[in-house]
């Protein structure tokens, strides 16, 4: 059963990953990438890492949809509806990526994998949480604050209308001038 699921998901992940570079439409390329990620998430679940696999599915659906929106919005041709490729220099890029894939795949077979020491933990999700949040708590907290600061900074840099546009030069204008009123009546 597990082997059958593997042989369905693994070629699907590889093939749809390859199709990302074959499709001429940004929408199709993004969805092909999403299918590849979904199959990879399924493979993680098959490996017994249910939490990681499910989170990969959860995050990748949202990320790929948002990526599709931005890729289509920022593409070089108007409205992003003309066919375009996801790569430049077709031959060399194909050769490089196939070589890298072959090298990585060869590595799997050449490596002498160590034997499993001990048994798998009963609850891998809990152990993963402990590993991340126990000894690495400081790293995680630093990482979280850094990511949040990056996001806030990016939004501040990218925002079209700041508080001086809304509240006036002395920040005293009430109510602010907004093109449309928000959901909490500000």
């Amino acid at each position, binding site marked *: 059963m597990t082997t059958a699921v593997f042989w369905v998901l693994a070629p699907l992940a590889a093939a749809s990953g390859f199709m990302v570079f074959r499709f001429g439409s940004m929408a*199709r390329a993004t969805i092909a990438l999403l299918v590849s990620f979904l199959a990879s998430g399924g493979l993680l679940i098959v490996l017994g890492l*249910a939490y990681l696999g499910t*989170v990969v599915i*959860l995050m990748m*659906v*949202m990320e790929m949809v948002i990526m599709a929106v931005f890729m289509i919005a920022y593409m070089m041709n108007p409205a992003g509806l003309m066919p375009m490729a996801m790569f430049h220099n077709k031959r060399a890029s194909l050769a490089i990526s196939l070589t890298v894939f072959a090298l990585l795949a060869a590595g799997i077979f050449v490596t002498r994998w160590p034997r499993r020491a001990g048994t798998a933990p009963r609850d891998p*999700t809990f152990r993963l949480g402990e590993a991340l949040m126990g000894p690495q708590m400081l790293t995680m907290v630093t990482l979280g604050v850094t990511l949040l600061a990056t996001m806030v900074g990016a939004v501040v840099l990218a925002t079209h209308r700041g508080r001086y546009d809304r509240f006036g030069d002395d920040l005293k204008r009430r109510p602010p001038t907004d093109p*449309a009123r928000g959901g*909490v009546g500000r």
Partner: protein
Amino acid sequence: MVTSAPLWSVLVVPALLAGFATVAVAADGLLAARAAHRRVSPAVLAAPLAEVPRLLAAQRRVTPAADTLLWRLGLAAVPVAGVLAAVVIPFGQLTASRMSVGVVWFNAMEVLTWAGLWMAGWGPNAVLPLIGGYRFVAQGLAYELPLMFALISAAAGAQSLDVADIAGAQGHLWFAVWMPAAFAVYLAGVHAFSFLGPFGYPAGRDLAGGVAAEVSGPDRLMLEAGRWLLLTAGAGMAVPLFLGGGAGPLMPAWAWSAVKTLAVVLALVWGRRRLPVIRADRYAELAWVVLIPVAIAQALAVALVVLTTGGTP
């Protein structure tokens, strides 16, 4: 004690889900008839079912230069997401799949509608569906985070991501009682991911149907059935998460599960009829300024209670 049913029970899930969804659609038709001061008759209740053969026989609408692959894939993703989300919901003492991370699985499957509706909007190469698809993504950015924190609150209260454990942890006090904010946010989230009622914006009347504007025939059936299946799956999940699962006096567990699911379904249908549609940009502000802080405070309160008492208050 909830146990895993044999593998074939996965086939029972869509049937059971469709049964509850049919009740929901019939109740919705009934409320519509009452609101229009029409006489309520069996024909009114059966009208949504009579729609099924008509849609199955109807012709598919064709638009020029449509991306048929993505369109069909997106439409199919909506009912598939509803059924897959329902696989982890325990019904009485049985569950089709007792996943150790059932809550996360439910969340992941419900999120599939993001991709589904965006593709369904993109596919037909037409303006109104495209706007509808983008509206759902905007709405998703608003509803998803509060919903996730509501799910986290329930999981933290039971200290488990297993749905059956969460139902079992509500021995003498339902989570809906001591996590009211999480429960309310969750119910709003169910309306949102089934894009019904106040969250019907992506398929709004102002867009001549939005994502559904160019969808006809069997595709239409799939999309419409899909949103009701999602609503029903959300209602079914509310029972183990917040209403104590199959626990209750006198009746067997499966009967309590059915009664509670029906109650949530009917409450959601009633809410869909009573609440006005909210624009995604307005809801985004409400979600990020009010609902996310409230949901985080709720999760924090739950975490503190669990840390001090080791379980329910």
